[in-house]
């Protein structure tokens, strides 16, 4: 077979094409220019972000919607450091991401060359794995391996740093030397004995509670988890990143647990005698004070990452496997539970402790009312992204997510600035869907430059700002725990976001606080096609309740503001 000459750069585009990469967000720069030159003749569509962090989170949006690894690209030095936040975010939320960075030529590495930074060293603690490619031939193994690592087991980010001379180096290879694409490798099935043991634990439990983690969505086990809840007549509580696994409105879903969970979820965790933790990692925002988390329960922990067993809580039974594998084989071993007592108890608790909020007629722009209104107004298959802060928690509490992968949010790292670029990525990954980004006035400004990308591609993304002219969740903590000393949480000025949108060439709407019918105005704005920004004023002293004080046990949750709070 005739050999074909590649450069490192053309080999990289060829390998990315073979990985199925169609859209590639990034920003060019000196050390990655050979690769960009190769992109010129590649079918890969490059999406020119306006900041590398935006490129990273656009890739997040794609990966979080599809479950497949998405790639992003940046140059050396500041390009690479700007990507780091998105990479760290992917690590904490277990998102498959392949980040490609240019590096100065190997002859200059270590000389403090222009735009040289130790990208490999910087990315060690925030990647699942990383590479510095020292020889063009290594690309043949590194690229497919990177995708395999990103997607297999517990997904995560992989960084590939490629010096400019490696991109320029020529290599002659046969087409049959091109490697098979990398991808998700199945993990070994759980032993039958473990599934039997789990079935016995469930059969002997009086009050089992299902603790849904993001791994259920990663594993595609949402339906199975719902069926498990039905089969054993159990209530379920969800982490932020598992919202949508069991649809809102299911008689089994009791809501989100943890810092902003309801009293019902705290009480159920205190009362349960078996906690079925599935694809969950006992994050401190979920558990509160870990020593006092589900104190009377045996724990059965199902996770694909065995390092999670005993990291925070010691399980009675741990099963290292894919959640869908475990649940699919568990269900046939379980009898239908006909006793409704425990589920009735859970339902009564849930009904007794709803979210507190004024009626819509009295306060249409109360955040909880707004979230519910948005759910009625947007198409039911809308993909929602959020930023980080109060608005994120209101969406988590009040927006009824009905399907997996309809909420994209920065759960573990809590990155303000996530929402807009993630929404853009979602729009590329799901071109026929409506995308909504609920954000705050603080968060949006952290990556607002990506409005330019929204304008470039005219994507169907609605950006809905809950604008309180504050860093709201900081302000809330200062109000509740720092004697109302609002240091650096109140903005002196806020931009006219609608005008800002128009400056980018996007439709902008400003809802007046005294509007006669603000909800009709919002609905009107959402009914029009194309991207838009809708600025909605909300009152600055509105708080997210309930709230567990940081470090406290969940049962010590604060239910509502008291004038004496200090």
């Amino acid at each position, binding site marked *: 077979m005739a050999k074909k000459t590649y450069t490192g750069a053309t080999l990289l585009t060829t390998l990315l094409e073979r990985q199925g990469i169609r859209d590639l967000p990034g920003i060019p720069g000196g050390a990655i220019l050979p690769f960009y030159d190769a992109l010129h003749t590649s079918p890969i569509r490059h999406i020119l972000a306006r900041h590398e962090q935006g490129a990273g989170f656009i890739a997040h949006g794609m990966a979080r919607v599809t479950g497949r690894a998405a790639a992003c690209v940046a140059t050396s030095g500041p390009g690479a450091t700007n990507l780091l936040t998105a990479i760290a975010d992917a690590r904490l939320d277990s998102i498959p991401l392949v980040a490609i960075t240019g590096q100065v030529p190997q002859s200059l590495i270590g000389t403090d060359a222009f735009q040289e930074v130790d990208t*490999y*060293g910087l990315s*060690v*603690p925030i990647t*699942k*794995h*990383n590479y*510095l490619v020292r020889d063009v031939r290594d690309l043949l193994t590194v690229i497919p391996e990177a995708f395999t*690592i990103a997607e297999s087991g517990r997904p995560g980010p992989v960084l590939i740093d490629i010096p400019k001379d490696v991109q320029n180096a020529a290599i002659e290879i046969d087409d049959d030397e091109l490697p098979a694409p990398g991808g998700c490798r199945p993990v070994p099935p759980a032993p039958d004995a473990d599934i039997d043991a789990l079935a016995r634990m469930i059969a002997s439990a009086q009050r089992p509670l299902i603790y849904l983690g993001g791994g259920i969505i990663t594993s595609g086990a949402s339906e199975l988890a719902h069926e498990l809840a039905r089969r054993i007549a159990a209530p379920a509580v969800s982490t932020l990143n598992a919202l949508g696994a069991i649809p809102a409105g299911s008689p089994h879903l009791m809501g989100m647990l943890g810092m902003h969970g309801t009293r019902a979820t705290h009480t159920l965790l205190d009362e349960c005698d078996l906690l079925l933790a599935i694809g969950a990692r006992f994050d401190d925002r979920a558990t509160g004070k870990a020593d006092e988390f589900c104190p009377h329960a045996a724990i059965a922990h199902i996770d694909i*990452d*065995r*390092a999670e*067993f*005993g*990291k925070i809580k010691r399980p009675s039974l741990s099963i290292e496997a894919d959640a869908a594998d475990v649940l699919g084989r568990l269900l046939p071993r379980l009898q239908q539970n006909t006793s409704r007592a425990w589920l009735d108890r859970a339902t009564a608790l849930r009904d007794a402790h709803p979210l507190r909020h004024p009626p819509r007629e009295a306060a249409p722009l109360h955040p909880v009312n707004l979230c519910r209104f948005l759910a009625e107004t947007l198409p039911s298959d809308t993909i929602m992204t959020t930023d980080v802060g109060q608005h994120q928690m209101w969406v988590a509490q009040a927006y009824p997510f009905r399907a997996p992968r309809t909420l994209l949010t920065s759960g573990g790292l809590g990155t303000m600035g996530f929402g807009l670029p993630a929404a853009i990525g979602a729009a590329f990954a799901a071109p026929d869907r409506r995308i909504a980004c609920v954000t705050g006035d603080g968060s949006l400004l952290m990556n607002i430059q990506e409005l330019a990308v929204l304008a470039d591609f005219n994507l169907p993304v609605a950006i809905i700002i809950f604008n309180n002219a504050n860093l709201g969740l900081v302000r809330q903590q200062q109000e509740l725990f720092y004697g109302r000393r609002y240091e650096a949480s109140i903005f002196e000025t806020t931009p006219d976001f609608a005008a800002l949108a128009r400056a980018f060439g996007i439709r902008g709407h400003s809802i007046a606080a005294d509007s006669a019918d603000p909800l009709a105005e919002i609905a009107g704005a959402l009914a029009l096609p194309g991207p838009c920004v809708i600025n909605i004023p909300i009152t600055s002293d509105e708080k997210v309740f309930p709230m567990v004080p940081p470090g406290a046990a969940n049962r010590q949750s604060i239910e509502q503001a008291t004038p004496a709070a200090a």
Partner: protein
Amino acid sequence: MTTTAISQAHILDLRVRNHPGVMSHVTGLFARRAFNLEAILCVPIAGGDESRMLLLVHGTPKLEQIERQLAKLHDVLSVRQRPDLPPDYFERLGGTEK
């Protein structure tokens, strides 16, 4: 090092891929997860394709967690405990007497 401290020490034996960077993955893990790493010895094996790392660690409650996190590193091929090595193994190598 006191006798008590020695008795709480564990020696972990890692087989790793030998390339620049694997040491920072291993030591970085200890720093990031707040595990104690008291001593480290690394020698090439298998004709230089792999290395053997011996790690002296304290903190029994976290030992299992340390082993599991190490095992997740892509370049770490195996992790095992070495109770057969004497507790003062590293001290002797270091030659800190005199």
